[in-house]
């Protein structure tokens, strides 16, 4: 058997099922005998034991040799599968993953980056793993792959999605307070859609809010006023805040300089009531994004209004939905607003803003007749992005 031909799922499951099968058999054997002996040779039935025999060389040999053969087979299955996991097939595309407390960032050769891992269906993907701070682990249960992400070291995994869909991606190595929320998805999309998605690679001018999300700020700082691991960012500009600077306690008004310090050197001034656990961002690592985020935090507004068309391209909508009326994977966007559409099991409805929003965030709930239910869920979009997207769709005549 050539391990190269197996997928990662087969490599793991083969060993798993073999071991599980043997184990269940052994367990039933042991338990069955134990229960049988306890009943059969109970003291009520046999006040005096039938035998005092305490050794049998042949038995010892048999139950040494048979388990030895079994476990060696298990070892071999496991090792062979492991080799499959370690050998990257020819023609694999590469994505670079960067893990930090507590978010993932995936960067493509084209320069495009994303918080979700987009991969084409049917092509092996090699994910190069690097950590900016502590240990993390890349874990995609659907593909049975897991690899630690180790600071100062480059590791990698490979896998291949056979069907399009959205698959869970977890951090599996404990990394602190945000560990359980360091979850994202692998979005497996058809090759054409993937190409489309990757080509629109110019780092777009993005909204400050998206940047905050992308850098993982929003995992700990809310935008809606609720206290989380860190203080909320809602109306933070001008807020009077008590901070501790070393041993000294003082009050200050939040301004641009303070926010800059709080991002670059968070341990210097700790807001009272919160733990000093925010990881620092190295100077220069944020580039121009720092100013964009500061703009957003100071004004509460985006610099530029969001461009729905841009979002549709970035998110890969146009890979499956045409704007010229042709049917691709999904229905065309041409003149979609106000159109009467047949929904499976429900009949005709008129497409309005509410329906468009639902079909983006819960695409599986209402399926247009004659189309497959394969659209990934886009629930990571911000409210602003969603509005911009819907506005854009409204405008396609």
């Amino acid at each position: 058997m050539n391990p190269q031909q197996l997928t990662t799922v087969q490599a793991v499951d083969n060993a798993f099922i073999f071991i599980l099968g043997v184990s269940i058999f052994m367990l039933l054997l042991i338990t069955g005998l134990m229960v049988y002996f306890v009943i059969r040779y109970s003291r009520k039935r046999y006040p005096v034991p039938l035998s005092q025999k305490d050794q049998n060389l042949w038995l010892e040999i048999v139950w040494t040799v048979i388990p030895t053969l079994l476990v060696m087979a298990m070892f071999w299955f496991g090792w062979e599968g492991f080799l499959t996991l370690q050998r990257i097939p020819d023609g694999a595309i590469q994505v670079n993953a960067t893990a930090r407390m507590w978010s993932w960032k995936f960067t493509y050769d084209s320069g495009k980056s994303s918080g979700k891992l987009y991969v084409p269906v049917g092509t092996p993907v090699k994910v190069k793993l690097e950590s900016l701070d502590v240990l993390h682990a890349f874990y995609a249960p659907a593909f049975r792959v897991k690899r630690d992400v180790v600071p100062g070291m480059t590791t990698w995994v490979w896998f291949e999605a056979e069907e399009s869909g959205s698959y869970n991606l977890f951090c599996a190595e404990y990394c602190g307070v945000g560990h359980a929320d360091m979850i994202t998805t692998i979005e497996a999309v058809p090759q054409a859609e993937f190409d489309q998605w990757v080509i629109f690679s110019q780092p777009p001018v993005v909204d400050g809010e998206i940047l905050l999300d992308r850098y993982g700020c929003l995992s700990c700082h809310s935008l809606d006023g609720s206290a989380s691991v860190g203080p909320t960012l809602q109306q933070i500009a001008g807020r009077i805040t008590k901070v501790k600077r070393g041993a000294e306690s003082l009050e200050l008004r939040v301004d641009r300089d303070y926010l800059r310090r709080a991002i670059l050197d968070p341990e210097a001034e700790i807001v009272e009531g919160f733990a000093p656990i925010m990881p620092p961002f190295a100077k220069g690592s944020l580039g121009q994004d720092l100013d964009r985020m500061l703009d957003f935090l100071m004004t509460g507004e985006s610099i530029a209004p969001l461009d729905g068309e841009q979002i549709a391209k970035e998110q890969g909508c146009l890979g499956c939905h045409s704007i010229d009326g042709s049917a691709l994977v999904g229905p065309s966007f041409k003149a979609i607003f106000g159109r009467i559409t047949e929904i499976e099991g429900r009949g005709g409805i008129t497409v309005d803003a509410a329906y468009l929003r639902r079909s983006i965030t819960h695409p599986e709930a209402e399926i247009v007749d004659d189309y497959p239910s394969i659209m990934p869920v886009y629930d990571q979009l911000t409210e602003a992005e969603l509005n911009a997207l819907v506005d854009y769709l409204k405008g396609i005549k």
Partner: protein
Amino acid sequence: MSNYPAGDRGFLGDPKAPGFLGWIFSTDHKRIGLLYFWAIVTFFCVGVLLGLLLRLELFSPGVDFMSAQTYNATFTLHGVIMIFLFIIPGIPAAFGNLIMPIQIGARDVAFPRLNLLSWWLYMIGALLAITSLFTGGGPPDTGWTFYVPFSTQTASNASLALFAVFIIGFSSILTGINFVTTIHRMRTTGMGWFRMPLFTWSLYATAWIQILATPVLAITVSLVMVERLLGIGLFNPTQGGDPVMYQHLFWIYSHPAVYIMVLPGMGVVSDIIPVFARKPAFGYKAIVVSSLAIAFAGSLVWGHHMYTSGMSDNAVLLFSFLTFVVAIPSAIKVFNWVTTLYKGSIALDPPLLYALSFVLLFSIGGLSGLVLGAASADVHVHDTHFVVGHFHYVMFGGAGFAFFAAMHYWLPKIYGRIYSKKLATIAWGFMFVGFNLLYLTMQIVGVKGMPRRYYNYLPEFTDLNRLATVGSWVLAIGLVIMFANLFHSVLRGTPVGPNPWGGASLEWQIPSPPPTDNFGENDPVVTHGPYDFKEAGIL
């Protein structure tokens, strides 16, 4: 041999060492054993409580009542208490001290004062661990594994907790030295190596691991402390260090530690099954050799915790191979235990019930360990709830149930009073059902892909997590009944004679509770093996 006149409580009421001080400064191995026992049981109960809280938080996705930070601190504390304060000292320090010297016909261990020092170190370590919760940057949140670089960066009070582990480690080393010396030098006339009860044999194998492996733990935690205090960069890649090196050092101790935890449990079971089947232990020598083989080979398999860590493929090959090798002696033990029952005269009294549960639960733990030993299968389930379920089967189902078996077997000897067998059986029923509901479900949710150390989880895992949490409640009910029954028996149980179970080893030939000097003026002379029920006059 008869029991005492009424009112004489043996070593429990030794007139030469009265009162509280007479206990905490006693050098009598039985008193030290009991000091350990009560401390260990107390810590176990605290650990259980924390475990129940963790399960309660996992009842629903999202925050139920614990924040992420609280959850992380709680599972760290649960792990540290259960591993370092309950399971590692558990059977050797409590029952090893109580029973082993009597089993070999000795008056005490070889170094009684060192023995007392071990207990003091253990208590000081425990006190430091508790102190770490309320001082510095708050309760440690690193997990009991203290993985770098997180453990060198966290603001929580990891340094003190590490120091506590360091101290407790020395307690373990000293106990190991004491037991090896005792078993070599203090055996009575006629107590040849192959007349030693299997429990003593298992302690002997364990003691060697304690001596050889625990210093590595001391070194490892010292290095993390130095790293935290001085930032020398041993594990920091930006300073030329290597975080994976920490994992090697940690598991060089902590994998053998698994055998420190489970070997004595195997010893307990090897002692109990023959007595309740009225048959000699089948394959005595095979069990002895497999104990020693586990102690030896178990020291060479630490890397199987690290298949996904980024170490070389050659290392994975070697460690996976050795891991499967170490499975063989464990299988041999299980087959010998089961065969001991064949054609016996079996009384399913509580000690046997708990011992057979050990065999079953340890088998499930061991067999699921084979999945983890296989390099490819491990990649999927590593660091998921499958692993959590697996090691609870081995640690709790194995070492824990063996500890319970030992309590039901030897506490009547120590206190001269016996519990209600009916209640002990009812408690077992709850525990057995709850246990499997809890940990088997955990393994399933792990195979489905739920990572460990998650206070929050995806909604698709909700049902299984609820089931596991319900299992934890059933298990807790069983534990409460079991401990209540035992504690009640210690104070008000029915008095029993020297040999309530019909054992043939030496501890059953002296009164219950044993006198302070064990065998009185004359050392016993041993003329038969530990399971020779005919010679001992049981049959």
